[in-house]
Structures are given as structure tokens and as C-alpha cells.
């Protein structure tokens, strides 16, 4: 269907919803690289004005990628909740934006809508919203998940402890884990990106974290971020797998390039659930996403990178994950050029994911060839804290020596908790207090390290 808008006698027409969504996107290099961006500032606003007048119902009839060729589209259409949709079914995209911002559209109202909004609707409305709007609405959403602790409660803010090491050296990994725990990091997960995806290497790391967790009785979950097929194999070998990780994207062909599909993810989910290791909950999946991965795999079907990203959330939602995060600045400047684009994309991802009911965190990060630095990350970190983001990464001194990029430090999570009055996950907060690592105000206690270190001697003798 062709969509049109006239500005000062100039008729802007957009061939279909896919084109319209792309032209309405705030500028980013990835869409320009794909040849999908608006040609002028005026055309972009014309597209946004056109989009604002489109009824939400259209999104159920006009798929951006055909139902017949893409299993993500089929999942989106088949899992849509028509009952809940009645609340918003008469709205246009623009009216949805205004309605989302209303005071009586509160946490409970938004919760009831999670399955009624499709990823494309979420992406569409986000394109009409300023950063402030994205923050204001996301802040009203609450998505709580549980495994050995509770993540996502209002007033709480968690961190994934990311103790990567270029050769997976167990002592090197353990050193970063201890350092992070002493800064109150790790309540979201202790999650290692392994340098090697070999099952034996992954098993070694799983056992290492599990031993530390049990020795100190820490109410947290662990994850080694290997490919799902590796994790499934390890589960069959009775490895101590808490959370099962996978990178996912918003088109079937992009997921094929990652070596996954919906049935494989279902198998991984069931296998992980069968271990029954969660003590207070059963959210066992951990997904990572990021704008640009579909274009990077040449699998975007002419859909803009933010809409593709939101489509990936439909997959995540199906498997009731413990954690989801967008690795927003990792992909590089050909997709998100600078701090401005990275910040915008992160707020969009967080907003769309929360609206769709995902426990969203963000890897607040950049590479050295992006036009970004620590100041941009401080801005984004603070904005996400206000928006109610579930978690960020915690990396020693912001410097990931394995993946060679900069993310947030252990200190950054402490800063955010301090300035916004946020606290760690409740179970983990109790543990930090019991161990003497933090005091009742959440400050790092000078006696913390001694208490924990006195019991870690065996860690440093490992091979």
C-alpha cells in the first residue's frame, strides 16, 4: 500500500510500510549504508507525519517481511494477542504515542499490552518519540525476572559481571570476578564471553564460576556465552548451566547466519529448564541483540536496522528470558557512527523491549573507531538509569581485554546506584551486607576485601 503526505505542495509518497518505517527513522549510518534513509530532513519529517496517521491495525495486515518467507514474521503474527489489542486497536501510531505518555497509562496498563503490541508497532511509535519520550514511557514499565535472585524491580539496578580473559585463563577470570564482586557487581549474572567455543573450555569456565558461587553462597546466576549448540551438548554432559545464552536477530536469514532458528532455541530452552537449577524462578535464557546485525549479515530484506532489532524481541519474548541486552555500540561506526547515534539507538532498544515485556539491559559501549568516548557513555548510562534499565555490564576499568571494546566499569554501576538512589537485586544486596562488602548505605566497605580474600587462596593455585 502506498502512503502519502504533502508538505508545501510537495507530495511525498512511500511505496509501503517497510519503506515508510525506514524513511521515518532518525538518521544513523547503517540505514544510509543500506540505502534506506530519508534523502532530506524534510522527507524524514514527512515520513514521520505520514506514519503518525497510520492506524495500528495496518501493521497486522502488512508485514514488512512476508509471512511466507520468514519465521520471525510468522511468530509475530501468530503470537499477537487480539483481545488485549482491543484497548489500542482504534489508535493511529501518533495517537499511541500520546496515549503511552498519559498518566493513566501506568505500569499495570502497560503490562496488559505486552503481547498486543507487535515489534513493528513498537518500532514505529519509537520513531515518533524524542529521547525524553522513550525514557518517560520505559520508566513506567516493570519487567521482573527470577532465577536465584530477582532482577528488574523498580528501584533496583543490576550489573552483569563480565570477567573476560583473552585465553580464558581460569585465574585471570577468577581475579576479575573477585574484583567485581567486591564492587557489588554480578547480580544480573556472572557472564563470560569465552575466547574459545570448544565444549571443554566452556565446561571449565562453567565449573569455575559455579565453584565460586557455591563456596561463597552467592545468590546469583552464571552464564558462559557460547553458541546454543555448545550449551545443549554441555547440558547433556551435566554441566552446571544456569542461563543459556544466544545472540539473536530480527530476520530468519540473519538467525541462520548465527546458526540458530526457533526450533533450535526451543530445544535449548527445554534442555536448560530440565536442569531445574533456579531456586526462586525459571527464567533461564539470556539473549543479546544489537541494531545492524541483520544488515551486517546481508539479511535485512530492506527493513531499517531499528525495526529489524525490534523484531528480534519477538523471539526473545517467546522464551521468557532472565536477561536480554542490546550490545548497542559494539557493531561499529558504519551502523552507529557516534555518541549521538549510539545513545538514540540504546534508548530505542530499551523502550521497545520494555514495551514488549522484556527484561532489558544495555551494553553501554563503543569501539575505538566510533566517534564516542567515556563522556558519551556516562550520558547514556545516566539516561538508562532514569529510564529504568534492568542492568548494564560491569567490566574491570571499562576495558574488555578479550573483545577489545569499552563498556561500563564496576564503578559505573556504583555511580548510578548512588546518584539515582538505586539498589542491587534484593537477594544480592543482602549477601553484600552479610559479607561486609557494602554497608547499609550501599557504600563499599574498607573491610570487604579482606573478608572475601581470606577464603580465596585455592583460586590462585588453579592451573
Amino acid at each position, binding site marked *: 500500500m502506498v502512503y502519502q503526505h504533502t508538505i508545501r505542495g510537495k507530495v511525498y509518497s512511500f511505496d509501503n510500510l517497510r519503506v515508510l518505517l525506514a524513511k521515518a527513522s532518525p538518521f544513523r*549510518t547503517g540505514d544510509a*549504508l543500506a540505502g534506506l534513509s530519508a534523502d532530506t530532513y524534510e522527507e524524514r519529517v514527512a515520513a514521520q507525519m505520514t506514519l503518525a496517521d497510520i492506524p495500528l491495525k495496518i501493521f497486522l495486515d502488512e508485514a514488512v517481511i512476508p509471512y511466507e518467507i520468514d519465521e520471525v514474521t510468522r511468530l509475530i503474527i501468530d503470537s499477537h494477542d487480539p483481545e488485549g489489542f482491543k484497548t489500542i486497536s482504534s489508535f493511529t501510531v501518533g495517537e499511541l504515542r500520546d496515549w503511552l505518555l498519559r498518566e493513566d497509562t501506568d505500569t499495570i496498563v502497560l503490562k496488559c499490552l505486552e503481547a498486543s503490541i507487535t515489534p513493528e508497532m513498537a518500532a514505529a511509535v519509537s520513531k515518533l518519540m524524542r529521547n525524553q519520550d522513550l525514557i518517560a514511557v520505559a520508566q513506567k514499565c516493570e519487567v521482573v525476572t527470577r532465577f536465584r535472585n530477582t532482577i528488574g524491580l523498580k528501584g533496583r539496578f543490576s550489573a552483569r559481571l563480565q570477567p573476560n580473559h583473552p585465553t580464558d585463563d581460569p585465574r*585471570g577470570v577468577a581475579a576479575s570476578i573477585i574484583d567485581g564482586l567486591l564492587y557489588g557487581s554480578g547480580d544480573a549474572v556472572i557472564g563470560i564471553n569465552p575466547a574459545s567455543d570448544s565444549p571443554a573450555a566452556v565446561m571449565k569456565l562453567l565449573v569455575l564460576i559455579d565453584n565460586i558461587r557455591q563456596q561463597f553462597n552467592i545468590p546469583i546466576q552464571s552464564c558462559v556465552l557460547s553458541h546454543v549448540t555448545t550449551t545443549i551438548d554441555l547440558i547433556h554432559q551435566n554441566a552446571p548451566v544456569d542461563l543459556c545464552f544466544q545472540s539473536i536477530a530480527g530476520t530468519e536469514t540473519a538467525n541462520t547466519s548465527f546458526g540458530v532458528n526457533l526450533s533450535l532455541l526451543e530445544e535449548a530452552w527445554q534442555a536448560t529448564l530440565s536442569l531445574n537449577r533456579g531456586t526462586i524462578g525459571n527464567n533461564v535464557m539470556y539473549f543479546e541483540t544489537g541494531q545492524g546485525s541483520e544488515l551486517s549479515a546481508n539479511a535485512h530484506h530492506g527493513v531499517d536496522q531499528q525495526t529489524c532489532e525490534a523484531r528480534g524481541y519477538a523471539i526473545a519474548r517467546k522464551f521468557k528470558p532472565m536477561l536480554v541486552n542490546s550490545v548497542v555500540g559494539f557493531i561499529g561506526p558504519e551502523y552507529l557512527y557516534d555518541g549521538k547515534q549510539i545513545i538514540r539507538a540504546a534508548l530505542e532498544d530499551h523502550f521497545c523491549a520494555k514495551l514488549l515485556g522484556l527484561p532489558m539491559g544495555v551494553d553501554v559501549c563503543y569501539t575505538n573507531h566510533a566517534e564516542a568516548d567515556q563522556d558519551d557513555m556516562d550520558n547514556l548510562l545516566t539516561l538508562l538509569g532514569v529510564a529504568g534499565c534492568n542492568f548494564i555490564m560491569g567490566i*574491570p576499568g571499562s576495558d574488555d581485554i578479550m573483545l577489545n571494546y569499552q563498556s561500563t566499569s564496576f*564503578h559505573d554501576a556504583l555511580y548510578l546506584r548512588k546518584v539515582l538512589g538505586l539498589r542491587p537485586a534484593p537477594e544480592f544486596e543482602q549477601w553484600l551486607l552479610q559479607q561486609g562488602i557494602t554497608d547499609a548505605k550501599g557504600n563499599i566497605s574498607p573491610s570487604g576485601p579482606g573478608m572475601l580474600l581470606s577464603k580465596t587462596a585455592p583460586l590462585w593455585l588453579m592451573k
Partner: protein
Amino acid sequence: MADEVTNESSFTDPLSFLKAFTAARIAIGHTGASIPIKASLEFKLAHAHARDAVYSAMDMEMLTDRLAQFNLPVLSLQSRAESRASYLQRPDLGRLLDQSAKDIVENQVSGAEVSIVIADGLSALAIHENIVGLLELLIPKLQAANLRLAPICLVQQGRVAIGDEIGKGLQAVLSLVFIGERPGLSAADSMGAYLTYHPRPGLADDSRNCISNIRAGGLPADLAVTKIFYLIQEAFKRKLTGIHLKDNAGLL
């Protein structure tokens, strides 16, 4: 009179002994919730080195002079990305030769076995630091193995795949691209080497073999040359590079 304020960050971090196990920035202390000034500035300096490396320009004159020792023609080429900003945003342009470079390549005597391409990539600094020393070890080995070498190509604003167009233009059997890798905080001068058998436009990364992190503090030139030479011999023997060319000698 106020009590003297001691700086908590100046205390030795009790975790300092753990630094022996990892190069990660652990045990850096804290002042309030924040990173102390020393560690903060050290990080900034590392990032500054990385940024300077990304924006370093290849010194064509210096390199041409120093490459003269190999008695091979040295060609100065440019990709279609005309600036660093364009290079960073348009990877497709960095993979293509501009018109004048095309003309230069077309006018060469073709039909060599190995075409050596040197591209700035994301760190011209890496090329400045590493390429000449490496070629001083590699080129004599290639010549001793009776492999004919094409003119050495220096490419500004080049990406790995530009070696495909050059290799095809020179009708080389194998292209060997040296390129500045994306700088990290720990090193801004890492060079990568990519081998592609039967180079031609349109190939993907699975058609190549890569040797990464070539630099004094990483993979030293002599070891890198051993690996590259081994891969070249295997590639000629098996007539391929890429995921099907594995390291059976345990060298990689």
C-alpha cells in the same frame, strides 16, 4: 582547623596481587564510587593512542623509500573512500579502487604468483611500525621459494577486500594483504595479514586465512612470517585458502 583529608584512592588496593593473573584493569581502587584519577587518566591515554592510530595517515613517501630495498615496483593507490569519515561510514567504498588506482593497476605487467598489498585499515601506525621489518624476513623467503612477486601496492583508505580487486587486476594467484587492525586500548599498532587464493571481487571472509595481532608485544614478525610462509605453501599445494585450509602443522 579541619582534619587533614587523606586520599582513599592513594591506598594500595588489597587486590593488587591479583594483577599477576590478568591484564584486565582490576584493583584500580576507588574514590567514592568512582575511579581514582591515576587510573582514569591512564585509560584516557590508552584511548587517545587508539584514536590517534585510527586517524593516522599512511606516510606514502617514507614507506616507498623503505620498500625500495626489495627492488620491486611500489604502487601508490587510493580506495574510493576519499576521507577517514567516508572510510568509517562506507566499508563498501574502502573495498574498491578509485579510477586512477584502477588505471595504474591495469597498466602493470601481470601474472605474478603473490601480490603484496599494504593498506592502512584502521591503523596506519600499525603499518609504519611493522611492515618493513616483516617484509625483510618474508620477501627473501618467497623469492628463495621461486615465487614471483607482483608490484607492492600501498593503499590509502583500504579494507581487506581491496586485495581482491588488486589481485585480480594483477592476475596474481594469491593476494597477501597487510592491514592496520582496529586499535584496542592495550595496543594501537596491531597489524593483520590476510591470504586469499585466486583473488577476485565478490569473495567473503570465509575464503581467506588471517593472522592477527602482528606487533612487537603480540605476535612478533619472525613467528608471523613462519605462519604466513607455511600458509602460502599450503595454499599453493591445495589451491585454496579459507576455512578449508587448516593449520595441520600446529603453527597457528
